């Protein structure tokens, strides 16, 4: 075969078209960063809609924000920040070749993500119970503003899209957990953990923007 693949230092996860593991890692990392840029722009569209409506109806945002539970929102913020820490620790464990710690840290991350989603679930069902649905299904009487449904449409869209990202992240964590228990990761090869970690930090950062924008409006 071609000259490339005859060198012996290949890890078993190295793909044929890369010259060496370093090139593969660099490419994966760069690709992930570029992908995260596209994610930011996707949320950016919704943030732009948010900004426009907040400029038009500032009083609505103050009124409607009171319906959101700051305590649980705050708890969720802490949960996500904690999970960002544990995912970083999983990467560190891989670099130090502590294979057991990789799995433990990934497991904690997964649990924290699940806690986030459970809290989110209770927040949503509570609002549905009150009749706070998105768009034309909105029936809540408690906010004296004709455009209150638009605020909650934005709330559901933005936290919903974020929730989808958390769920995808949980899927990725499960996949990593399975692979780490098989001993795939170590100091030689931990690209998937690093990439998922980058993704997870982004999910975390987006929530850090969403939380004050919806829950903390005076």
């Amino acid at each position, binding site marked *: 075969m*071609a000259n490339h693949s005859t060198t012996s230092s290949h890890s078993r996860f190295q*793909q044929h078209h890369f010259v060496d593991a370093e090139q593969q890692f660099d490419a994966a990392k*760069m690709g992930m960063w*570029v*992908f995260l840029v*596209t994610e930011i722009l996707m949320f950016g569209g919704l943030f732009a809609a948010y900004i426009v409506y907040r400029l038009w109806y500032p009083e609505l945002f103050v009124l409607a924000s009171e319906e959101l539970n700051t305590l649980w929102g705050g708890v969720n913020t802490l949960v996500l920040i904690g999970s960002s820490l544990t995912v970083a620790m999983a990467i560190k464990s891989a670099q130090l070749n502590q294979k057991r710690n990789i799995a433990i840290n990934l497991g904690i991350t997964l649990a924290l993500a699940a806690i986030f989603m459970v809290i989110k679930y209770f927040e949503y069902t509570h609002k549905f119970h009150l009749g706070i649905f998105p768009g*034309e299904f909105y029936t809540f009487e408690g906010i004296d503003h004709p455009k209150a*449904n638009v605020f909650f449409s934005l709330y559901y869209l933005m936290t919903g899209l974020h929730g989808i990202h958390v769920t995808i992240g949980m899927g990725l964590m499960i996949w990593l957990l399975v692979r780490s228990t098989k001993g795939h990761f170590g100091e030689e090869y931990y690209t998937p953990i690093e990439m998922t970690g980058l993704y997870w930090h982004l999910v975390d950062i987006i929530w850090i923007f969403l939380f004050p924008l919806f829950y903390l409006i005076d």
Partner: protein
Amino acid sequence: MATAEANPKKIQVQRYEPESDPDKHYLNEETGLWTWLTTVDHKKIGLMYLASITFFFFVGGIMALLVRTELWTPAKTFIEANTYNQLFTLHGAIMIFLFLVPSVPAALGNFFLPLQLGAKDVAFPRLNLLSYYIYVAGAVISIVSIVSGGIDTGWTFYTPYSSTTGGAVTIMTFGVFVIGFSSILTGVNFITTIHKMRAPGLTWDKLSLFSWSLYATSIIQILATPVLAITLALVGMERILGIGIFDPAMGGDPVLYQHFFWFYSHPAVYIMIVPGFGIVSEVITTFSKKHIFGYWAIALSSLAIAFIGFLVWGHHMFVSGQASLATMVFSFLTFLVGIPTGIKMFNWTATLYKGSIKLASPLLYIFGFFFLFLVGGLTGIVLGSIALDVHLHDTYYVVAHFHFVMVGGMVMAFLAGLHYWWPKMIGRMYNETMAKIACGIIFIGFNVTFLPQFVMGSQGMPRRYFNYIEQFQSFHQISTIGSYILGFGFVMIFYYLVKSIFTGEKASPNPWGSRALEWQVNSRPPLHNFHHTPVIVNGPYDYHKPMDEFQLGLAENHNAHSDVNGAEVSVSNEEETSAE
């Protein structure tokens, strides 16, 4: 060999001369339907894209011919108004999302980007295959929407019409949403490939201009397409949940939709045309055997277009009721984006100076591009001027303008690229005489179709009209006749290209005498592109240097992507071919 390892600055290289008609190539090293469907080879994926976009080009083209036929008489000719409205909508949506956006980057770009970089594949081959299947899925969803009621919103999906009309708008927007992800992932893949997969010695100043243009295109794809995705998702939500962001009946703002939509869709026209610019640079240098004039001017002007292109979306909205100040700023920026495009035209012309010009069919297509794109670009200046746009907006003038840019510019460049690279892709030559005749037919047919539309538009004929006043009938009829000529030209190309696959003369590895890297491998290329690691010491347009300097590769099992710049290159005496 020992010396090479002892002294990393000195590398041992060898001359590899490509074979024509090799025994083994990417099409026969693995065979069977299943290997095609699961292939991660960028060349096969490129061919699959090529087949798909050709199919959709003809589907969209037939719709265009039906639209033109209906316009033969001022009132109903043979179809109902609602059918007509669906046809022009689908013509636009299919041509833009299923043909133009993926045409050059996903089909030709996929095939030739790794070859031009001296890489074995793109950075993420499996992601590349996934992009293709996402494209197919999006296309299938779009077809589902056509059979389950169709859409009649125009390809722009303007709210509140799109959020209130009947038909399968939700499915169609979902289809386009899905196709968007194909485009995003291809962009991510190409950017990473260009940054990380270049062969030793291939520095940024030796990157081919086609690769530069794909780089600029990918930047636009990753920055603009996510916004389109979320915008179309919002339209879907508007229809399903009535979220009231865009529909004034529920408290929304329809003009906000237009801002969101054009934030993607204006840069999207650069996604469509910028890769075409890359092809022009490749073809002009090859057929004039001349170094490109103003390499950096052309490379950087693509990036300039990519960035300024993001700031001009409001020029689609001069009469929408946006603030006068915004209108002024958008008009100003629109004129600025014209400058880098002009710079390219002048540099290409200057490249011809003192060249050795051979009027082969790819170059002929490029000259077709030159004239048509020039007209398209200059009428863009007309439309960028606010007062003139107030008169011409949403008339046939706009229709003619963007067809000159998209068909006259982009499709002509695509055809030039297709003819230029066909021998490399397929390993066969097409009938050159027929290619020249087809080029002439398309050029004439195109002008007969669209020049009358400039006249109609200036006189005030609005676009998307089923009925029209009788004053315009003769122009419409000339235009319709032109469209038949144009359609015939495209069918002719299809005929002789397909014929060449079976009966074409075998192509030599480098029939045009190009210095570019993709011509230094066999025709057809091997499955993993290069049997050797290519070493690049010259730029892709160094026509003043002898050919054998472009056929160098590492002479040993040397795997590091070390920088060969400044390294002493010693060519081993024995010449070898790259046979395994």
